[in-house]
């Protein structure tokens, strides 16, 4: 449907080209990052950003259907732990366990979303929050397998090297593929149906959109990608602990989405890049660093209600207004 609506726009063809060129430049830029930065630490930050971008984008995908998945960080943890346990204790290849983790997360997501599909709005959000907390505690209480609160260490890694460059390229590829898939879902009829359910499940069911089916589908797709992100995280980071996936992480993921812009696909990407990378710059402030994140939050939420993605639109509108006022004079 997206393509069709774009096709109505007579000037869309030219705009598409500029868009393709811009995305091309962006991707080239991302490809050259390891050449710009010799420091493994900066690459490390970029790699983590890529992981969180997948997580936040998949969270937004679920949120387009009107469900607020407050268990999303727990699913990230589920993916991470499944991949870690499979590769460390079962001895599977990390590459295999990564994808098994994604499917396990998807399976659990589907399993819970059938009963949860009865719950609306706040109840869904809260019950998924409890499920997330419970899931994490369950992971934690399996001490022998997961190391409990202390966490799990010495997880087999994807590449047998201390260098971070292969991880960067691999994760960049995985992230781009995931984003493209999520984007395709979003602009396809599936994505539109999710948005329709969000606006009115009653009306959408009256035209034949099955509420349960699409809500489950949204959770399944979202959980698959967040599970994948979790697996990537586990097999890159080598260590895992439950506290990295607790409910405050979910809330931060919602912040990534909201600050970036909930109504736009690039919202979570921009939000994650800004809110994950910028506070790192101030990490030298130690205990005072969290205030920087909070300051960004307040600034953006009070100035740009619709998130950072609305800035170009606002600028353009400002520019146009200025032009028209100068013309009228």
């Amino acid at each position, binding site marked *: 449907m997206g393509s069709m609506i774009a096709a109505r726009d007579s000037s869309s063809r030219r705009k598409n080209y500029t868009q393709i060129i811009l995305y091309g430049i962006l991707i080239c830029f991302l490809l050259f990052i390891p050449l710009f930065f010799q420091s493994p630490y900066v690459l490390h930050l970029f790699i983590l950003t890529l992981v969180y971008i997948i997580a936040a984008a998949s969270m937004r995908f679920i949120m387009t259907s009107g469900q607020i998945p407050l268990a999303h960080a727990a699913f990230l943890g589920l993916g991470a732990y499944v991949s870690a346990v499979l590769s460390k204790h079962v001895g599977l290849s990390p590459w295999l366990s990564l994808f098994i983790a994604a499917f396990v997360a998807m399976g659990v997501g589907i399993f819970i979303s059938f009963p949860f599909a009865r719950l609306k709005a706040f109840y869904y959000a809260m019950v998924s929050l409890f499920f997330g907390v419970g899931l994490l505690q369950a992971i934690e209480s399996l001490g022998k397998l997961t190391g409990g609160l202390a966490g799990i260490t010495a997880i087999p890694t994807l590449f047998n090297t*201390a260098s971070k460059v292969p991880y960067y390229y691999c994760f960049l590829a995985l992230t781009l593929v995931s984003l493209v898939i999520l984007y395709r879902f979003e602009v396809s009829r599936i994505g539109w149906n999710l948005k329709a359910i969000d606006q009115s499940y009653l009306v959408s069911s009256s035209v034949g959109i099955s509420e349960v089916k699409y809500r489950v589908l949204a959770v399944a797709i979202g959980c698959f990608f967040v599970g994948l992100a979790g697996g990537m995280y586990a097999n890159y980071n080598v260590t895992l602990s439950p506290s990295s996936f607790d409910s405050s992480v979910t809330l931060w993921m919602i912040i990534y989405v909201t600050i970036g812009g909930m109504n736009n696909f690039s919202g979570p990407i921009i939000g994650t890049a800004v809110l994950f990378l910028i506070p790192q710059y101030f990490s030298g402030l130690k205990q005072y660093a969290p205030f920087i994140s909070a300051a960004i939050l307040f600034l953006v939420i009070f100035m740009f209600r619709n998130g950072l993605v609305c800035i170009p639109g606002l600028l353009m509108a400002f520019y146009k207004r200025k032009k028209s006022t100068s013309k009228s004079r």
Partner: protein
Amino acid sequence: MTKKGFPFLLAAIMLAAILALTSLPGCSSKTTTATTTTTSASAQPIKTYTIGLCAELTGFLGAYNTATVNEAQIAVDMVNENGGIMVGGQNYLLKLVVEDGKSTLDGTTAAANKLIFSDNVKFILGPDAYFNSAVSGLCEQNKIMHIGGYCTMQPGELDSTTTYSFLGQGASINYFTGVLAYLKANYPNVKKVALTMPDDGSIPYFGKAVQQMVQDAGYTVAGSIIGYDNNAVDFSPYAAKVMATQADAVIACSGVVLPNGSILKNMRDAGSNMLFVVCNSVIPSDYVKVAGTKESTGVVDCSACYIGAPDPSPILQEMITRYIRSIGGTGALVTLEYANPVWELAQLFNKANSFDPAVVKTTFENMSSIETFYGTGTISGLKTFGIKHAVSYQLPITTIDNGVPTFKQWEPALVP
């Protein structure tokens, strides 16, 4: 779907982020670990040498580690004011760079990553407890020497695979040799003990070792180890559980002050007089804070927390003086969890005459004793960890009655 302009923004933000990151300290290749500082007084330039400290400055260990990091800084100052260290005929001053692990394993991993790759340090001190496992593996991989603070004996913290990791301050297990000997001598009525421990995954390892030790010392352990949730809202159920064992004493193994103090308080509130034995690095007077003055009674504390022994060594005396000055407060509250590793590392540099972690490590392994703030420490641990990498030394035993901590005696402790 309005998409126009978003690639622009995306690119701009990425660019901004990248530009910001390039100016991050340590990202530019110019930074080296040894920098020359010109001092006006001496003709010979004195260089500084940076060592890393991985600590949990925020999160549940936050305030505790802030204090221990403060001590580590004092120890560094003491080393520097005594003339620094001498390596290869060159005089160096030590510089401490601290990274925050946020009291999570992943945060600690990130902090260690930052120390290794961004601050380019070759020696990492800290962190404590199970967070060590996040650092040990990385240090092994990158051939960085690591001296941890406290150990809960979980896999990956210190074993034969972590050849670059050491424990500079006790090993948690050595507290028990001291306290059990003290209990035997002073509390002959105690026959049955209950054990409490945070349910953080260390029960199968640390808990098992402790249980074995307690049994070997001739005590019966009441029931199984009582594991509590570090984040529980209310600890009174655990207190009720401890009281229900009707043991003569309860030994609080590892864990931070909040749960232990709360359990103590709830036990006293409910009218139990059970002897409360604390075996971990917690400042005794913190118990008084958490449990209350009246409730803090009948407590035996064996930890690295020193409180007013009559005969401190000169360096300990110095440390206490400076510490009191630095917090501008009252009372000697010293846990020395990171200060001892600093002191040990300074000695090692002088002795090894090198900044190569492999050389320093070998030097450490070949030594049999090393000076600490608590007197001479022995290097051992082969039986417990499968590797001779743990420093143990005498520990102070303190009792608390009616909210007043009293130093009793030094108790020699040894990690087998």
